[in-house]
């Protein structure tokens, strides 16, 4: 068992609560930094995707997990980031500026969605974001002079300060660096007044506003921040694939992003990383499993079935997601032998409608 002796308020403000955490994250950092040496080409490629989806996951997690909003249209922000990067690179803009613009334009898109979304909650917000996604996808397809329509756009490798990052290793370090920066940005926000305002909005908007939280400002800011992070992820995504087209930003991508957040664990930043890793590794496992299918069954639909079943099972049995499961395991070890089964149980609640008609 570990006892945390608190000797100052500083301790609670710090990112790492105790030495053990510093050690674990340090170890993780070393492992990740040495990845190009222990990981083969294939694993490196997967790590690229995990990093990219983690960044997007952070963005979506801040919006859904910490501010309590819903977005079924985040692929639209991904698209804005990706196309901004593609167009700017084609125009010869340096990478640092183009990726900042990707973030900026996505943030503007986030504000465009966030402002009208101020009055919308729950299912209405979900449908509005869904509609936004479909419309953006259609605009990208039709505006051929700008986006190339269905023929898509090609990208050259990233050129950062004159160095071409065209190897797996160099691109990996870029993604890793950006992922760490985004994670830090989110963690910093969460331990400061803005992050607390987000959580307040999630749990009770009325009392948040009665405590001085400007709902309009913070909700819009949450959308903008979330979209900005997604835009950064989109820019990296564009470079990773070296080719983008409207089909990569459909509603199903949005749903996949939300699944990442749910499977990883809503309400925990780590959930974004765990969820991304899971969603990226899963199709590989399914391909392997396809060989074992009984005869007669067509294997095309297996991925959808497994995806759906896992989503359902997680929501029913593990609502705190992968990180929640990890927390439970860790707490079991930390409190050994005093762990009680009901420690993480949700309060049972009954539905009470707020409708007036």
């Amino acid at each position, binding site marked *: 068992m570990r006892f945390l002796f608190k000797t100052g308020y500083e301790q609670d403000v710090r990112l790492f609560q105790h030495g053990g955490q510093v050690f674990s994250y340090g170890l993780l950092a070393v492992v990740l930094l040495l990845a190009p040496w222990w990981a083969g080409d294939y694993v490196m490629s997967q790590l690229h995707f995990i990093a990219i989806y983690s960044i997007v996951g952070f963005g979506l997690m801040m919006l859904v997990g910490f501010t309590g909003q819903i977005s079924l249209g985040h692929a639209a922000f991904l698209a804005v980031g990706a196309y901004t990067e593609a167009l700017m690179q084609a125009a010869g803009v340096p990478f640092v500026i183009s990726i900042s613009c990707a973030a900026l334009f996505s943030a503007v898109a986030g504000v465009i969605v966030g402002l009208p979304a101020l009055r919308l909650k729950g299912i209405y917000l979900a449908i509005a974001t869904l509609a936004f996604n479909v419309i953006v996808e259609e605009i990208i397809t039709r505006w051929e002079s700008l986006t190339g329509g269905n023929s898509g756009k090609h990208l050259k490798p990233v050129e950062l300060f004159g160095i071409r990052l065209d190897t797996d290793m160099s691109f990996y370090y870029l993604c890793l660096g950006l992922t760490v920066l985004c994670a830090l940005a989110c963690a910093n926000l969460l331990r400061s007044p803005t992050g607390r305002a987000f*959580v307040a909005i999630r749990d009770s908007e009325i009392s948040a*506003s009665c*405590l001085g939280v400007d709902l309009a400002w913070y909700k819009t800011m949450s959308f903008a921040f979330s979209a900005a992070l997604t835009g950064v992820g989109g820019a990296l995504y564009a470079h990773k694939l070296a080719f983008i087209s409207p089909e990569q930003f459909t509603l199903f991508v949005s749903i996949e992003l939300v699944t990442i957040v749910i499977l990883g664990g809503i309400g925990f930043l780590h959930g974004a990383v765990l969820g991304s890793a899971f969603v990226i590794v899963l199709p590989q496992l399914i391909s392997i499993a396809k060989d074992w299918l009984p005869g007669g069954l067509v294997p095309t639909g297996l991925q959808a079935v497994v995806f759906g079943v896992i989503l359902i099972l997680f929501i029913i049995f593990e609502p705190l997601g992968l990180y929640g499961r990890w927390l439970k395991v860790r707490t079991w070890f930390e409190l050994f032998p005093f762990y009680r089964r009901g420690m993480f149980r949700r309060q049972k609640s009954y539905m009470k409608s707020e409708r007036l008609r």
Partner: protein
Amino acid sequence: MSFFKVENLGIRFGGVVAVDNVSFEVKRGEVFTIIGPNGAGKTTIFNLIGLLYPASSGRILYGDRELTGFAPHRVAELGIARTFQNIELFEHATVLQNLLIGRHRHRSTSLWQELVFTPGVRRAEVAHREAVEKVIDFLELAKVRDTLVAGLPYGVRKVVELGRALATDPKLLLLDEPSSGLNPEETDDMAFWIEDIKKHLGITVLMVEHDMNLVSRVSDRVRALNMGKAIAEGTPAEVQAHPKVIEAYLGAPV
């Protein structure tokens, strides 16, 4: 210029007149209580003061400033805090985080500073924490500081609700039925705290309450409401003996 004044306040929801031409004045540093049977419009008055919905008529004056047309968060920024009758705490946060959100109106850091977490932000966070710890000491919440609100018993939640309002460092505190659901010991504690709030913290308290003992003990002046209309005002003793008040609660003599 009075500290806080409500003039001819009224609101109707469709055909229902919830609050009908209510006026009262709260002096600085006093505890002013509004009593009345259920449905008399007491919580509605609080909601009107907090600008959760706009009044149909009348006005609310805080010092020389008229409270109309603001968003609710601006009311909080002016130094008016409130508690809710049916506790509206942040369920998935700890008590400490709930109280820290109360410090929101005193924040001094910008978004960019927070993203980078400058030393200035760090200092501000420690300062917020110190301010909140004073409230925790005052309300004896130290034991439950790091517990998630969702797991706390009702009595403790009421205290956390009060603490959160106090953490905003208000000049005017609106308490909506602070003793509802509390047992006699907890009500006793609440009475002590309200007295301390008035005497030591110098905060003006506007309270809605049903428990007559508590009302008599802590209030300086009382206003009685029935069906949205004001029916009596005075010291606790005067109001309790007022015939109209007795009629409202117990019915007219046959």
